[in-house]
C-alpha cells in the first residue's frame, strides 16, 4: 500500500507541477492573434521556444506514466477516486504559492475530498 501512496503522490505532484509550468509558459507566450494557419504556426513556434513548456513536458509525461503504473498495481475503482487528491494539492498551491484567497466553502469541499480519498485508500 505504501508504494501505491508514494506513486499517487508522485502522480499528483508531477501533474500539478506540469500544469502550473504550462500555465506560466502560455501566459508568457500570449494567445494566438488569429486562427489563421500561419498565426497558429507562429504561436506553436513561440511555444517550442518557451523554457517553461519544455520544463512541463517531462513532468506531464511522468505523471501519465505514473498513472499507468498505478493502474497496473491497483483496481480502477481505487486509482481514479484517489486521484481526486489533486483538488487538495491545487487548493494548497492556490493558497500558499499563488497567494489566492480560498473561501471557507472551498476548504470544506477540499476537506470532504481529502476524507473521501483517505476512506478510498483505506480499502486498498
Amino acid at each position, binding site marked *: 500500500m505504501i508504494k501505491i501512496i508514494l506513486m499517487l503522490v508522485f502522480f499528483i505532484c508531477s501533474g500539478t507541477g506540469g500544469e502550473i509550468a504550462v500555465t506560466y509558459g502560455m501566459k508568457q507566450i500570449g494567445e494566438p492573434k488569429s486562427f489563421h494557419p500561419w498565426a497558429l504556426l507562429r504561436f506553436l513556434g513561440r511555444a517550442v521556444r518557451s523554457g517553461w513548456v519544455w520544463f512541463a513536458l517531462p513532468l506531464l509525461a511522468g505523471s501519465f506514466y505514473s498513472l499507468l503504473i498505478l493502474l497496473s498495481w491497483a483496481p480502477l475503482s481505487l486509482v481514479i*477516486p484517489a486521484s481526486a487528491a489533486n483538488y487538495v494539492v491545487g487548493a494548497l498551491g492556490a493558497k500558499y504559492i499563488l497567494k489566492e484567497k480560498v473561501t471557507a*466553502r472551498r476548504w470544506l*469541499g477540499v476537506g470532504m475530498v481529502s476524507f473521501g480519498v483517505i476512506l478510498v485508500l483505506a480499502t486498498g
Partner: protein
Amino acid sequence: MTREHRLRVKTLLMVLLMVVCANLGDLILKVGMKQIGAVQMSAPGIWQALLSTIHNGTIWLGILFLIGYTLCYMTAVSWADYSYVMPAGAFGYALQTILAVSILHEVVVAKRWAGVSLIVLGVLLVGQTKPSTTDGSQATQ
C-alpha cells in the same frame, strides 16, 4: 428552437461525450495495463513496462479516448461556464466506480463507496465557489 435552447442542448451533448471519453479512456488504460502486468519498481522493470506500453494497441486506444476527452472539454468550456461543465467531472468519479464494478468485476466495499460519495460532494462544493477570489487579473484554479 431558440438560440439559447440550441446552445444548452449542444453543450449537454458535448459534456456527455466528454464524460464517456474520459471514463472509457481510463477503463481501456486499465485493461491495457492488465495485459502488461504489474510494473516492477526497478530500472529494468520500468524500462520494460515503458516499451510494453508503447507497443500495446489497447493503451493507444485509451490515449485516443483521453485526447477526445480533452477536445470535448475544451469545446464545452468555450461554449459554457466552467461551473456548468465541472459537475460532470465530479460525477465521473462515481461513474468510473460503477464501470469498474460492472465491466471489470471489481469488488467495491461500502467504505470505498462512502469515500467516492464524499469525493463527488467535495468536488461539487469546490466547483460551486466563485471561480475568482482575487483582485485584478489573477485567476484561480
